[in-house]
């Protein structure tokens, strides 16, 4: 088992453990910690798959941004009694069955890469830029429009909430 395999395995373990914690945790604290572990695991996966750009972006946007906002929202929503807010679940065998089935199907049908091959080539940010500004220009622009729409949506939501 090479160092690369070890890195991939630990990233996968982090992803799985984080996901399990996020889905099952009872206290908001543990939920956020697990979500953080999951997001960090995803970033490590990106790194192991040869895309440091995507890994850094993942850390920047998710851990530094989205996760902070989740914590922020929890602090706003959960304060008052001061306790770490509970995040209740209504566990349901049907839902568990659906999820399990989905897992089996996904694990079978999704394309895999044979393990044990050499670490992939690093994808340089320049190559990504070529794709984004070349054949992917439409998607790139659409993403920009989407971000703008999201920004406006948030402003509208917050403003309409403030007036009442």
């Amino acid at each position: 088992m090479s160092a690369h395999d070890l890195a991939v395995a630990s990233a996968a373990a982090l992803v799985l453990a984080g996901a399990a914690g996020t889905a099952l945790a009872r206290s908001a604290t543990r939920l956020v910690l697990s979500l953080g572990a999951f997001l960090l695991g995803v970033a490590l996966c990106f790194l192991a798959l040869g895309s440091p750009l995507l890994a850094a972006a993942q850390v920047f946007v998710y851990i530094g941004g989205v996760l902070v906002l989740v914590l922020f929202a929890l602090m706003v929503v959960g304060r008052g009694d001061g306790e770490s807010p509970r995040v209740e679940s209504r566990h349901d065998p049907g839902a568990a069955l659906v999820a399990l089935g989905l897992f089996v199907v996904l694990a079978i049908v999704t394309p895999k890469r044979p393990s044990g091959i050499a670490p992939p080539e690093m994808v340089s940010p320049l190559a990504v830029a070529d794709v984004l500004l070349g054949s992917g220009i439409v998607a790139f622009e659409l993403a920009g429009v989407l971000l703008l729409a999201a920004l406006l949506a948030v402003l509208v939501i917050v403003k309409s909430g403030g007036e009442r």
Partner: protein
Amino acid sequence: MSAECRTVVNVGPSHPSTHGVCRVLVELDGEIVRRAEPIIGYLHRGIEKMAENRSYLQVVPLTDRLDYVGSMYANWAYCRAVERLAGIRVPERAEYIRVIVCELQRIASHMMSIGSTGADTGAFTAFMYAFNQREQVVDLFEALSGSRLTYNYVRPGGVGADLPEGWVERCREFVAQHPAAMMEIDDLLFGNVICRARTKGIGVLTPHDAIGWGASGPVARGSGVDWDLRRDDPYSVYPRLDFTVPLGERGDCYDRGRVRLWECVESCRIVTQALDQLEPGPVQAEGLPRLLAPRPGDAYDHIESARGSLGVYLVSDGSVRPYRMHVRSPAFANLALLPMLAEGHTLSDLVVVLGSLDPVFGEVDR
């Protein structure tokens, strides 16, 4: 909105910006103060009651502990009440010395207030500059009375001791450099764009409210209420001295701070004139008995302290101890404005508003 999410925060009793031991119970909606209620009494020592068990002279050190940032004022207000009660005439030199020390005290007290405006907004350097000036005044007082905070200097019938040798020159030196230092602090603090943004339009007190709530001193004058006991109910030798009463326009924290600043400059003018007019002579009324026992009756007298109209009411039953003493504390009346002024501002502004009211809790709680 019925279901606002409010957070209750205790600012104090032990908190860096309460300027003593006060607790402000604050209800916050996010950062916005919805209600701020000062809870006082943490420094209550029963000074008014203690005064009933001491001779008239022994009460003077108690009055030191009222406004511990400006002990001279409480000394003087109390002594004036005693003198009125017992019909004592104070020698002229003593009156001049009283005016000089009290104007110096105004500078010292305002330096504390202006410095803490800096500290409250996070500009600790302005605090240091202000305290540099305050220390020089305190040094002068130390040479005069032997102590740096509670002077016990103004006594019924005069002052505790004559000016020591060389004191007048030191005092002149101080008042000569002080206005320039004030300009520097003004530039450093109120000239700063962030400080202006933090104090302008914050905690606006209308002249109507200022009068209605019994505000006095720089707090009232910051709102443009032209009221100064030194001019409007002249006492001591103030009628012989030329000075102006600085006024604010908008009644916000900025104006209150600026009024204090200009009062310091005016105080320098007063001290210079008083030093010029100072004649040799006795500093204690002659023939005063060790134990004063005024005829039964009551007396009230007030002076303009650094915080406003400071009054002392005394009742005598003919014995050697006051039957009753009551202090009309300007800081107490000014502090009552806090809930009104802070509401709707942020938590950071609450601290600035509290600082601009310049409460001293020794005097508020008594």
